[in-house]
């Protein structure tokens, strides 16, 4: 068992770089999510760890071992594929046993391990079934058992939950997370669903256009995004264009002066805040808060929260979310109000 | 994929198989230019004389002409019968549709030598019964060749229709087009590549047909493949290589033409 280290990984197809200088270290035993929009290079990165993709340059290490030039079948990775890729001509038990045969295990040892794995994923009773007779969730558990049976160094999962319906998705992701923790195996999974990533991953690597934008815990990414992309991709975010004029001071395009906590170089930038950190009201706000005059575009009652769609004087669309329990009220369209938030609750990105 | 000795061996193997498939054709084309009267490797020189000689041999000249004529007629027949049939089978639902499809594809599945024998004896019976001679005649050969082309037309036009589905035609009808208009403005353009491919493959199937023609040709009414086989039973020289090369060139030209209309990689 060891961690995985990627150093300056590049995968280029002609002029196009699917993976553009990615360096990251996956700690031993952690579950890391590679998160990003379709086509961002996260799957290519995963496949580079597996060995299906040969990097144009850069290295892949499992612990101390450099596996960059090692072919897939010698890397000892466990992989769960999108769609599970269970062998249709073999039953569940033989699927799970598949990787053990080639390692020269004797029949007794194989049978013992297969039983062990099937019990681990709670499918012991279905060992004689074929893949087509199993539900999606069951197939996924077989795929996991098969991958883990060989005692891999790393567990890789390619969009493992995308083929499941919503309810099953929630159920399976907690299960997989639990199983992964029990086994303590270094794992990487790829997803485009941020809720999923934030719910189960120890850390998340956000990938965009082949580059690793940010690596950190869910809280790091949400509260302290380092780039506009991360700020906008994780959760909802409001962006106010303008420039940083002095440490902690921001001049919005419309002329309003705003303050922010944290550091940022002077020059053009965007000030960001989350919808739940702002309040909207007639004009009374705590001293020291940022204020921005807006007019109401629409108000939507969602049950636990009420969402306000607002337009600032410089034409920017803003979203404020107020909990209904705090007594948020409806407001007619076009009404002029003031949005306010604390400087500590906002951040600046390029 | 990382290169390794195993992968290189695999590539060599695959290349060798393709060489095996293609080499004989290359060799016979090469041999058609040999200067020696008897086939010798390596040749002492090269000449075009055998092509001229081939044309002078009555069997080959008339065989060539007959093959071209029969192929053209058989192609027309195969299209005239096959295109409507394909339309009916793909766009209509009626009892017995699938068995009917199989029947129309049958000529492809019946062994050619069996079909040849059967059609020959049938023609003889027809002649006995009606005094109409079909053996050793142009119409007789043409009928057999049309049947050979029919499954190709069915397959290729049905594939065209199946991949596009009837959705375009339904759209046309919803916009007010009647059956005939829908056919000419919507269906026909859709099946055009399939029809052209069908024409070209029917032509090839007819031009190269051997086992059925064997029973149905006669003196003065023979096809090129039969003329080649007859010659080969007694002689093997550069003349026959020249004749074979001509057939190769014709088929090759037709294939090249068809590659523009149908992605050959997907037709099979």
């Amino acid at each position, binding site marked *: 068992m060891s961690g995985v280290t990627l150093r300056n990984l590049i995968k280029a197809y002609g002029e196009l770089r699917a993976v553009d200088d990615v360096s990251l270290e996956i700690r031993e035993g952690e579950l890391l999510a590679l998160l990003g929009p379709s086509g961002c290079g996260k799957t290519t990165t995963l496949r580079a760890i597996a060995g299906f993709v040969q990097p144009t340059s850069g290295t892949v290490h499992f612990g101390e071992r450099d596996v960059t030039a090692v072919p897939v079948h010698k890397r000892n990775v466990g992989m769960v594929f999108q769609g599970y*890729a269970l062998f249709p001509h073999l039953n569940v038990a033989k699927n799970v046993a*598949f990787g053990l045969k080639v390692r020269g295990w004797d029949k007794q040892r194989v049978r013992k391990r297969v039983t062990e794995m099937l019990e681990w994923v709670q499918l012991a009773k279905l060992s004689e079934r074929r893949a087509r007779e199993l539900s999606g969730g069951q197939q996924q558990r077989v795929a996991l058992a098969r991958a883990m049976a060989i005692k891999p160094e790393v567990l890789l999962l390619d969009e493992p939950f995308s083929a499941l319906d919503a309810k099953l998705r929630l159920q399976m992701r907690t299960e997989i997370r639990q199983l992964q923790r029990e086994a303590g195996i270094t794992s990487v999974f790829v997803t485009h669903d941020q809720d999923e990533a934030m719910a189960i991953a120890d850390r998340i690597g956000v990938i965009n256009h082949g580059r690793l934008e940010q690596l950190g815990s869910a809280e790091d990414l949400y509260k302290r995004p380092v780039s506009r992309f991360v700020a906008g991709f994780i959760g909802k975010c409001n962006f106010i264009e303008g420039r940083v004029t002095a440490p902690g001071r921001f001049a919005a395009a419309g002329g309003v002066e705003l303050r922010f906590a944290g550091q940022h170089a002077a020059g053009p930038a965007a000030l960001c805040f989350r919808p739940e950190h702002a309040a909207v009201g007639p004009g009374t706000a705590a001293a020291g808060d940022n204020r921005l005059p807006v007019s109401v575009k629409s108000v939507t009652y969602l049950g636990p929260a009420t969402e306000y769609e607002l337009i600032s004087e410089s034409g920017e669309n803003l979203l404020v979310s107020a909990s209904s329990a705090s007594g948020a009220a409806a407001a007619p369209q076009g009404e002029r109000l003031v949005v306010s938030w604390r400087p500590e609750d906002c951040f600046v990105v390029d | 994929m990382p290169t390794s000795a195993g992968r290189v061996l695999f590539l060599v193997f695959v290349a060798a198989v393709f060489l095996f498939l293609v080499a*004989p054709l290359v060799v016979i084309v090469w041999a058609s230019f040999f200067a020696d009267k008897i086939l010798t490797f390596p040749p002492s020189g090269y000449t075009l004389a055998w092509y001229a000689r081939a044309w002078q041999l009555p069997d080959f000249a008339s065989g060539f002409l007959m093959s071209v004529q029969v192929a053209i007629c058989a192609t027309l027949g195969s299209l005239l019968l096959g295109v409507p*049939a394909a339309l009916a089978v793909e766009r*209509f*639902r009626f009892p017995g549709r699938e068995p009917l499809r199989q*029947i129309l594809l049958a000529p492809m599945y019946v062994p050619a030598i069996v079909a040849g024998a059967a059609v020959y*004896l*049938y023609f003889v019976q027809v002649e006995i019964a009606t005094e109409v001679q079909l053996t050793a005649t142009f119409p007789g050969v043409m009928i057999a060749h049309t049947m050979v082309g*029919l499954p190709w037309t069915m397959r290729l036009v049905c594939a065209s229709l199946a991949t596009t589905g009837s959705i375009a035609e339904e759209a046309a009808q919803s916009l007010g087009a009647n059956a005939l208009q829908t056919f000419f403005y919507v269906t026909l353009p859709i099946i055009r590549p399939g029809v052209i491919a069908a024409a070209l493959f029917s032509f090839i199937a007819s031009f190269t047909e051997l086992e059925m023609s064997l029973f149905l040709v006669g003196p003065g009414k023979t096809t090129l493949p039969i003329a080649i086989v007859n010659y080969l039973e007694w002689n093997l020289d550069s003349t026959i290589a020249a004749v074979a090369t001509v057939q190769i060139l014709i088929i090759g030209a037709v294939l090249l033409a068809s590659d523009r209309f149908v992605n050959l990689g997907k037709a099979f």
Partner: protein
Amino acid sequence: MVELQERRLKPGALVIPALLLVSAFLLAPLALILRFSLDLYDPAQLMQGVFSLDNYVKVFTDPFYTQVLGFTAQIAALSTAICLLLGYPVAYFISRSHSERLRSLLIILTVLPLLMGNAVRSAAWMVVMGSSGLINGLLLAVGIIEEPVKILYTPTAVVIGLVSVLLPFAIITLQSVIDSIPASLEEAGRSLGYSPLRTMVAVVMPISLPGIVAAAAICFCLAMNAYATPVLIGGPSVHMMGPLVYQQIAKVANWPFGSALAWVLMAVTLVLTVVSTTYLSRRYF
């Protein structure tokens, strides 16, 4: 899909001409020779007009004919086996090649020799294998032999010729079945420790078994029914079913017996086609 009543143009009119052609000129003749096969030969009238199974009995008991049938089956089986061995790796290569252009090119190269026709192909092999052909010419020139080796007009030559006829069919059939097997299954095999070659054998082959059966059936039938290759490349000393049918019907004019031979070939083809189609329908993908 249009329901029958809604269209003014009935499908009948569209399909009847083709159906008539096939019925009149294929199905009826086949039925006719089935009837003939149950008749007996008469030197004067050609047929006696009786019903008898004698012809079929003769095919399966007369030593000469059982030998021809057996020999044909053996040659067909051998050619089929060689075809599958050569064709599977090639089909796999074509199916898994990443370049669309290479794939198209290889399929065209596979199909090209097929479309040239059996006469030309046999002629080409004669030029290669003949006593003054390419192989002998090369061996003589290099000095490996002093006299031409007899390659042509032997059963070996027939097998070589048949393999070249059958191989394109095998490759195309296998390639389309391998196409349907998702690449992720092979990747799963490789991630579990199987080398690329072992993955092909342990994962792709078993799953493509229905395709292998279908390809084998097609190849076997083509070889059993072959005419030009046995005649031109086998020569007078090689006796196979196809040429025998022709000889009995067109030369000896023993129509009943020739028809029986034809129907034996037909029956073998029918059975194998049905078996392989049923098997093929049980594919996984």
